[in-house]
């Protein structure tokens, strides 16, 4: 377990003449390297120590870079030396001053303190986190006493958690491809890794890390996967291959080196490089695969290999007649979760069960660790107070024997349903009928069949139904309109409207009237307009009481008088002259407009 370390750096930056020296991080732990960077400004070259001896720390020179800057036609350079500092033990350390020779001058750095806490870790082991279950990961081939210049720029390794396994057992594995950090390049998306006698999980995206091996910095691409043997015997895992394109240092064109030498410097490293197509291959690995033992194999063993636990829930807790209940079994642990079969139901005589659905949720990319949930739909054939029990058998490769997990029945209240009672007599799925049917079959019992509809369209949408409803709707609306009109005619407003219409018609008739009946119609209009139809006495009183102009009053009274004279003239009606008729009509129009305003 990694420990959190507390580090204190007393003077992270130390300055000497034209020299600076600093640590890139003021925190570290055992085995975790930090960088010590020494920067020389204005110098064209320097002599620095390859190693710095400190008890408890391993400090090696990792590389050098040069930066040139042109300012006012004056070329200046900055040289950076990088040391990898790997803590070997916990404690407080002091990196002592060391000498740097620049031309003929010697400068000294100042001491730098570094505090390290944490458990011991093998200093030469990779800084990558270990693969779960990996007990003895292979060391990279470059690890050893070779110098940095002799080390390979790239290499690969296959890490398996175990070399002995059983058929069907999932073996977590890692494919690691190392590239020296001094080289740039590109790598393929997926490694090529397959063979006979085993299956490989689909590769997730690669993890990219940095790792220091013997003071050399590497970029590592890690592909996590899992290998599953499918047959017993000695299994040869072939090499995994990953194609890459590397940028390796190259030589500068002739003459360009001389140009730089004239300025007293060297060509910056990395300025010229060549592209190389390379293939990184792991070493083949052998695995000893054993068949699953036949002795002690439970009847309900469905191929699960690993280490698992079993839990179950039921919902709903109460079910009406014929309502299905879901018995949910969750198998959790490490193993071949994807390939395993479902648990078996025990004590399910009073239940009708159906094949379960399953859902896999893995917590790692390889599907090695996680849980698989099986949902059994079950329907009570008899009234029930508890669900069936569950049994799940698996093979434990660590113990080398089979194990069976059981789940006791869960409480539930379920009533036997008539729909299920009329269904099939067997809970198990029925096999499909034979392709070659028997020569004689029982014809369907047509007498039990109902008539049912003879149209795919609901009655709601059929034309006949819609037309009938439309007809009834029109009738209803017609009645509604008729009733409304009649009710309006009987109302005060309706009566007023009818009276106004009648008065208007009377005035019109008076305008069109023959001379013999002119005064009769004009007097009728006046009486109607005053609301005193036929009652000339009342009409005369209302004219006199009205606020109409006197001249108009006189004209109206004269109309009434003329009508009285005509009525009693014994067959010779008074005929108005044209001017008189026009005057009367004008007076009637004025009266119609002014009365009651």
């Amino acid at each position: 377990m990694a420990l959190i370390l507390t580090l204190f750096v007393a003077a992270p930056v130390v300055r000497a003449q034209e020299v600076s020296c600093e640590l890139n991080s003021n925190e570290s732990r055992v085995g975790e390297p930090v960088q010590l960077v020494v920067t020389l400004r204005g110098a064209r070259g320097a002599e620095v120590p390859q190693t710095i001896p400190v008890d408890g720390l391993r400090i090696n020179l990792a590389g050098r870079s040069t930066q040139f800057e042109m300012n006012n036609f004056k070329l200046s350079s900055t040289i950076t030396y990088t040391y990898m500092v790997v803590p070997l033990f916990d404690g407080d350390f002091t990196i002592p001053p060391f000498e740097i020779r620049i031309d003929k001058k010697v400068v000294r750095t100042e001491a730098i303190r570094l505090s390290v806490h944490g458990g011991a870790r093998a200093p030469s082991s990779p800084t990558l986190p270990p693969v779960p279950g990996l007990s003895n990961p292979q060391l990279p081939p470059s690890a050893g006493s070779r110098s940095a210049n002799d080390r390979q720029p790239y290499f690969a390794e296959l890490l398996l958690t175990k070399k002995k396994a059983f058929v069907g057992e999932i073996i977590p594995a890692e494919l690691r491809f190392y590239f020296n950090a001094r080289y740039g390049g590109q790598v393929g998306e997926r490694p090529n890794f397959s063979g006979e006698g085993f299956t490989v999980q689909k590769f997730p995206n690669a993890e990219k890390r940095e790792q220091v091996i013997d003071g050399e910095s590497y970029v590592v691409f890690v592909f996590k996967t899992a290998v599953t043997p499918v047959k017993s015997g000695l299994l040869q895992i072939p090499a995994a291959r990953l194609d890459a394109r590397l940028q390796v240092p190259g030589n500068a064109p002739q003459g360009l080196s001389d140009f730089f030498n004239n300025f007293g410097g060297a060509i910056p490293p990395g300025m010229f490089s060549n592209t190389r197509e390379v293939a990184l291959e792991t070493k083949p690995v052998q695995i000893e695969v054993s068949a699953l033992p036949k002795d002690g194999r439970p009847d309900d063993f469905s191929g699960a290999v690993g280490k698992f636990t079993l839990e179950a829930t039921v919902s709903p807790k109460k079910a009406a007649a014929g309502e299905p209940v879901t018995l949910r079994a969750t198998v959790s642990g490490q193993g071949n979760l994807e390939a395993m079969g479902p648990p078996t139901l025990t004590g399910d005589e009073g239940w009708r069960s159906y094949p379960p659905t399953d859902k896999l949720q893995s917590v790692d990319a390889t599907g090695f660790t996680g849980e698989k949930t099986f949902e059994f739909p079950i329907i009570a054939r008899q009234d029930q107070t508890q669900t069936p029990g569950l049994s799940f058998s698996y093979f434990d490769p660590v113990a080398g024997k089979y194990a069976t997990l059981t789940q006791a029945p869960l409480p539930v209240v379920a009533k036997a349903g008539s729909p299920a009672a009329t269904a099939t007599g067997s809970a198990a799925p029925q096999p499909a009928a034979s392709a070659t049917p028997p020569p004689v079959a029982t014809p369907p019992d047509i007498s039990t069949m109902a008539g049912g509809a003879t149209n795919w369209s609901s009655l709601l949408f059929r034309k006949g139904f819609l037309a009938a409803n439309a007809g009834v709707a029109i009738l209803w609306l017609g009645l509604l309109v008729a009733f409304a009109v009649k009710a309006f005619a009987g109302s005060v407003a309706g009566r007023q409207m009818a009276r106004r219409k009648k008065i208007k018609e009377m005035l019109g008739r008076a305008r069109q009237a023959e001379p013999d009946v002119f005064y009769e119609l004009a007097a009728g209009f006046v009486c109607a307009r005053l609301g005193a139809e036929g009652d000339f006495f009342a009409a005369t009183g209302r004219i006199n009481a009205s606020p109409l102009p006197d001249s108009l009053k006189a004209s109206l009274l004269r109309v009434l008088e003329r009508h009285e004279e005509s009525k009693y003239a014994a067959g010779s009606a008074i005929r108005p002259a044209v001017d008189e008729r026009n005057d009367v009509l004008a007076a009637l129009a004025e009266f119609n407009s002014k009365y009651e305003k």
Partner: protein
Amino acid sequence: MKNNFSINGLLCRKSGVRSSLLLFLALAASLPSLHADALADARARFSDGEFDKAVKFYEQALETRDPSASVFYELGRTFSKTGNEARAALNFRRALVLDPRFVPAAKALRESNVALGIPPETPGWRATVLERLPMDALTIGGAAAFWLGAFVALFAVRARRRGRLAAGAVLVLAGVAALAVVWRCDPRISLRTEAMVLKNGGTQMLGTPADQSEKLAAMPEGSLVRILSQRGHWFYGRLPGGTHGWFLTEGIVPVIPPA
């Protein structure tokens, strides 16, 4: 000569029209017997164990007559005999769409679903309504109650009779409620966008209409899915559990046959 020819031609044409009319009438008169013959042939083949031939005669009978729950049930039984449980389930379901109270079809559908590994459907309130009420009768009764209530209310308003007005309003509400129940329960309405997976081995519901898309759910053979839209040879639909996604149109057959 020319005239004679014309007269003869006219006569011949008249004679041809007459014989065509007679032939049409004869064919029209014989159509029911053709239906009956196809159905009788189908049942005879079924009895003889020639299920493949029986399927063809049943399908022929269904093409030439109004849909019948009984015939769909018989066709489903025949498919079941041939081992095609998915098509059997489709025809049992069609029989139930036409007659939701068709008990033998419901039982046969459950058996087919068991054989296909399809979980049983939870009976809800709609199933209860369908068991008890015929949808067409409920439709007619609802419409009649609505209009009766409407007329009673109309005359009650005219006569200023509050009691009759209340009775009319109750009848109108009862009619609307009955029609709403029909709208929600009649399988010819509620299943008009449902389809069944008939593809061997089932199919997959994907996140997007592309072959390499993320797989959302498995759609086993015989399962139901609601079609929401179509884009090219892809359907967009919803599974009974609520999952929405895309799937190929191949092997997806609507429960209610297209007109």
